């Protein structure tokens, strides 16, 4: 052993200095490494952006064609009244008018608050505030003389409701048999139906 234990005390300051220098060196390395990693990440992100921009530019004609096609499609949907606002009052009035016109025994309705259309097979973003199309669920209870009353009711609703109606379900049950005999006109069928009145989410408009 060249050095004694007592000599180690004399080496405290050089040791501390050496550690300090090594620590400073390590800190410089860590700092430069972090900066380099950051620079590489920025470069990578930049590359990705420029690639995306180039692809976008290359597909600009395609995109324009898409927009034109989409606009044409949208016009078709406008013709089918899918892109209008919610018209609760008009719908209620239409139901009353149809009942009157078709001399239906009874039409009870229940109109739910509107929500995003969430049918199976629709895009994931069709929910919450981001939803493009909204559905106002109309639950109907009808007392009918025969099946045609129901079909006429829906036909009139589609015309007079000023909105796109999507029938989701309908349950028709017979209230009396054909052998019940004559007598005053009575409802023979009862129908419980669910119709969604489809409207466009106006929040998305520019």
């Amino acid at each position: 052993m060249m050095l004694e234990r007592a000599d180690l005390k004399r080496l405290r300051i050089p040791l501390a200095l050496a550690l300090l220098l090594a620590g400073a060196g390590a800190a410089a390395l860590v700092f430069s490494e972090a900066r380099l990693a950051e620079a590489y990440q920025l470069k990578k992100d930049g590359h990705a952006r420029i690639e995306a921009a180039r692809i976008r530019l290359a597909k600009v004609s395609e995109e324009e064609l898409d927009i034109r096609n989409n606009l044409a499609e949208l016009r078709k949907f406008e013709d089918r009244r899918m892109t209008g606002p919610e018209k609760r009052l008009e719908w209620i009035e239409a139901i009353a008018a149809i009942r009157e016109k078709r001399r239906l025994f009874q039409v009870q309705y229940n109109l739910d608050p509107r929500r995003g259309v969430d049918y199976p097979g629709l895009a994931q973003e069709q929910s919450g505030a981001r939803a493009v199309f909204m559905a106002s669920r109309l639950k109907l209870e009808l007392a009918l003389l025969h099946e045609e009353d129901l079909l006429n009711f829906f036909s009139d609703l589609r015309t007079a409701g000023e909105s796109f109606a999507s029938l989701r379900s309908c349950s028709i049950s017979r209230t009396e048999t054909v052998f019940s005999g004559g007598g005053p006109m009575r409802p023979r069928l009862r129908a419980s139906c669910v119709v969604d009145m489809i409207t466009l989410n106006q929040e998305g408009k520019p």
Partner: protein
Amino acid sequence: MAEKRLLYITAKRLQAYSWKGGKLLDDGAFESGDEGVTRFAHYLGSSRKALYYAVPDVTEEDFFQENIPFVGGKDRKTLLGRKIAQRYRDTSLALAVSLGTQEGGRREDRILFSSFTNTQQFQPWLAALRTNEAMLVGVYSLALIAPLVAKRLKLTTPRYLMVSLQNGGMRQSYVEDGQIRFSRLGRADPTDPRAAAEACAAESNRILQYLINLRILPRETTALEVVAFAPAAHREAYESAWGDNPLLKLTLIDLESACRTAGLNSAPPEMLGERLFLHVLAGTQPAVQFASNALRRFYHLWRARFALLAGGTAVFAFSLLLSGIRLMDVYRTNNETEQDSKQETSVTGEYNRLQANFPKTPIPREKLKSAVGTANALLRQTTFPDRFFSEISQALAAVPQIEFDKIDWEISDNPRARATAEASKTTAVAGEPSPAAAPGDANRYFEVVVISAHINTVKSSDYRGIKAVVDRFVQVLRQRPGLEVISARTPFDAITEKAIAGDASEQERDDVPQFSITVSRRIGA
């Protein structure tokens, strides 16, 4: 780098020199005795950061060669220590140098043991060095330095006797294969060239005989080269003193030229041959020396401090270098990123320019695309049951025994699941998994109708009659294009699925037989 100080110690005094840039500077002479030692201690105190090289040049120096068994590690160290202790009374300044191994028979190490045999004369100097915590690099002798001098002067002779005249006397060192084998300090008068030359010739002859007697040199040998350092002016005196000696070949080297070749720029004028040796020592620092670790303690401490600081600085410098390289990489990468960014701006600008000519849309473009997709999907699953009901109505008309009780209509992407749910409801089978949609049903939607009906003209116990009517109805439904009968539940199905009990003799009941059928129709078909 620390200042280097060389201490040339003779029997009478210690002469101190500083060595700077190839120059030897006289720091003073210290006579043996208390006063000299006290002055020397003051001298040591003048620079605590200097490195000291002690070079005693005394007659009491012993050289002895012995072969020892070839061992390594700790055993070797112990063995060498024991050998030194056996040979020398005072082992404080002793060393053992390996001259190589001797093969043949048992493998042995040839060791040269050397020591100052009377250390008392310079112990006061060493004590002063220790007391003043001077950084003593080592204690050397001119004999140890001789091979280094030859190397510095590029002497290629394999064996030679190096003769030089110092203030301490005339030193003769025999070197073989670059290693000292024997050395001796003799008397000579440096002020009389002729006497010095004669002493050189006589002492060289004597040493040759001594080496032959000790069998260090073989008896039949070629002439031994004697490399003598002397001023050029003394050449004639040496050559005439030498005469015609067949056993010794004189190679006289001018001391001044040798000093210049070795890189010594200047030295105090009173220095003789020792200037060359001290200069070579300061520039080379041989690994072999006499001092113990205890004497060199403060030198070791200095080395440890130096190593720590040098290590730390090296790590710091290396890290800074690496960091610098990386930061240059960062700079280069950032420049490239900036270039990319400019390109991106240019491409985006071009895109925006073209995009400005796009048709205006009532809602944002992304939303428009989504709206079109959603609307199409919505249309694919929207229909009214007019046609389906009409088909069912015609089928019912074809089988007048049947009168429906209830029709449940809905839109589904998996009509089979709907049928299973209906069956579960009637048979109360819980936990049965819904069947998967049929292949090709993905993105297809169906109108599904569950018809619950009764049969008017058949008794409920007439399972065959019920089955026949229902089968007829199913057949009629299947004949309608686009309709698919997914399931039919009759009372006959119920008796095949669960235990039944009854009384055959019992009067026939008036119950109306009921059944249900699930029919689907693909939207758009």
